């Protein structure tokens, strides 16, 4: 696996596979019929070892860092992939950081091998709504929570607050969560209820504000990368349309008002990309400025993606308004990830802590 160690080479390989396996036509067919992940595509990427990328080598993974995952998230974003990547990778990250040795040995190889895990967002981005209380034979879990991808997941990684106020993560078997369709057909949402559900000790591990914050950085980088990837997928599609489509006897891309909007989108993308790269580098280096920069990247890239996706349909005119064209897949994904795992106010508030500024989210 030596050749995978170079991030650029990795990224190229992600792109080649996804272009082949999950191009625009494929995506339109998938999104037309399914609400949720593509199991065949997931099996393909599991087979390619992508789910093992960031799992520690001791547990059957490649032990690569967040930079490798960022490359994957970006490429998945470029094709609006219907995959529970962030859910599963974030769960693996939580387990690798916080679970006990036996738990890690049980769970991480399973994830590397393709088990899909849905995960509750990190605590800084989401106030836990589940509570656990200690009983003689383990824990009792109560409450309602809403999780992305749970209907497709084999396991759920919950976040719960104990009676003493400490945070815990719980890995439970997913047992038929209700499948609420999203406008983005690549994912689903589930409301999950527990009432005094007994959870054995070996399914629980303690979390901490530090661990949750690390997960928040992971999530922020992941969604910033997905947004950058989305722009990288959608912008060329739109430019190509402007070059091809003719009205009033010329390609509509020759109309300056449209050109200028494209130029603005492209310019913003350049900023998103370089901010993401810088934030990723800080995270890899464990730099204390990492969380702020990651949140800055998330807020900016997701906002710009949503705006590009909004305008792309307009730039496509009528065809962009049809379900037969891929534009709307990008728009719906953009609107989802803008909100998911902390919306703009949440991440901007985290970002400006680097200025010693505490503001409301």
């Amino acid at each position: 696996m030596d050749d995978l160690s170079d991030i650029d080479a990795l990224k190229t390989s992600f792109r080649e596979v996804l272009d082949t396996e999950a191009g625009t036509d494929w995506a339109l067919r998938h999104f037309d019929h399914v609400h949720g992940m593509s199991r065949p595509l997931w099996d393909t990427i599991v087979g390619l070892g992508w789910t093992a990328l960031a799992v520690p080598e001791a547990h059957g993974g490649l032990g690569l860092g967040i930079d490798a995952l960022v490359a994957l998230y970006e490429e998945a974003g470029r094709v609006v992939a219907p995959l529970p990547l962030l859910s599963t990778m974030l769960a693996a990250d939580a387990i690798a950081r916080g679970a006990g040795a036996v738990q890690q040995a049980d769970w991480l190889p399973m994830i590397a091998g393709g088990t899909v895990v849905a995960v509750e967002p990190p605590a800084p981005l989401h106030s836990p709504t589940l509570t656990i209380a200690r009983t003689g034979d383990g824990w009792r879990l109560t409450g309602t929570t809403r999780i992305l991808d749970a209907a497709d997941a084999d396991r759920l990684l919950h976040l719960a607050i104990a009676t003493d106020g400490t945070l815990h993560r719980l890995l439970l078997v997913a047992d038929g969560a209700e499948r609420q369709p999203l406008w983005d057909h690549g994912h689903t949402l589930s409301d999950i209820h527990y009432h005094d559900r007994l959870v054995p000790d070996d399914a629980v591990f303690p979390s901490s504000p530090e661990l949750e914050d690390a997960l928040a950085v992971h999530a922020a980088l992941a969604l910033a990368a997905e947004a950058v990837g989305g722009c990288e997928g959608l912008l060329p599609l739109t430019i190509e349309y402007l070059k091809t489509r003719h009205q009033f006897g010329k390609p509509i891309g020759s109309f300056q008002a449209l050109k200028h909007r494209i130029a603005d989108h492209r310019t913003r993308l350049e900023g998103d990309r370089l901010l993401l790269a810088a934030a990723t580098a800080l995270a890899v280096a464990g730099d204390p400025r990492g969380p702020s920069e990651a949140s800055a990247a998330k807020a900016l890239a997701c906002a710009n993606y949503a705006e590009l996706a909004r305008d792309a349909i307009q730039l496509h005119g009528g065809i962009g308004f049809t379900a037969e064209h891929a534009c709307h897949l990008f728009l719906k994904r953009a609107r989802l990830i803008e909100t998911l795992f902390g919306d703009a106010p949440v991440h901007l508030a985290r970002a400006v802590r680097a200025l010693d500024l505490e503001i409301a989210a």
Partner: protein
Amino acid sequence: MTSPLAAAHDLDSFRAAIRDWLPGAIPADWKGRIRRESEEGYLAVQREWYRAQTEAGLATAHWPRDWGGADLSLAAQVVLYEEMARADAPNTDLFTVSLYHMPATLFAYGTPEQRARYLEGVRTGGDIWCQGFSEPGAGSDLASLRTRADRRGDVYVVNGQKIWSSYGVFANYCLLLARTNQEAARKHDGISYFILDMKSPGLTVKPIRQITGEAEFAEIFFDDVEIPVENLIGAENEGWRIAQSTLTAERGLLIFENSERLVHAVRRDAARYRDLFARDPAKAAAFAGFYPRVRALKHMVGELLAQLERDPHAGGEIATYIKLYWATLLQDYNGFTARLDGLDALIEAEPLRCAGQTPDDTMYAFLKSYSWTVAGGSNEIMRNVIAERLLGLPR
């Protein structure tokens, strides 16, 4: 119950009569039925609601008495739409072309036979009409359309393709623009206007699914479709001019209805988000920023109606500004409220059609808003028109 029209001589009485009439006339649980039964439910609600209006003489009350209407004044129509918006009644979008564009066209350019047959079909038969204007290669540049109608004896033989025909899947008839002279010097000059029976042999209608999940639009394919010569509207090759002059037949009222519904939605949203705003002053401030734009729109539409009351052919300039203002505001506003709703907005819901542009499902409303920014003259076309025709900037 007598028709509210009996009170139409006085606006206050008319308003009171409409208020009395509406609760019994609005199809019961219409939102629930559409949500549960999807397109079937939508069509049933539309037909029931249209029938209720027809029975009270209200659907075609704005038509001249000579053609089965009640000569209802614009002011009274405004009252009617105000009250419908206030009562959150469904709109009658399936019948827009039937009630406005087709009759306006036939009143001005139709033969007596055409009027007798098609007006009555709408008034008592509930006929649904659509328009066949845009083509895959002729959208913003409509005059470059290529669907051809070749005269052969007593018929025109039509070949080509139309697209973006609203309600084309459900329509009984179509107002069709097709090219009858391939050699005209200006491309606008070779186009004729036809009444097309949607059951004609050789005609295929294919729904276009939209990003909202609905299939409000259709493609229409013509393979040697025959249209009798008596279905020509006006003179041959005069179609462009006729269509242009009747395209804005609904001018004022539909935008009035939509803007009224937006005004109500904003008021409803102020209540709906009250707790959120109390917790989050930044969101409250952003919401407040929309309010003056909504008020401005309301008054722009009011000005358009005032101009139309003085002269039914007036209002072209302000209608142009309104189209752009409304489309932009609608997309901005629904894009914003969908953000306020967070993940809730992102759960896909059965489209609540005919509820106006601002139903409670904010993401649906946001997606649907493109039907205003893109269709009927895209924002870009409107800006060209404003800059070049109204402000005289060079082409």
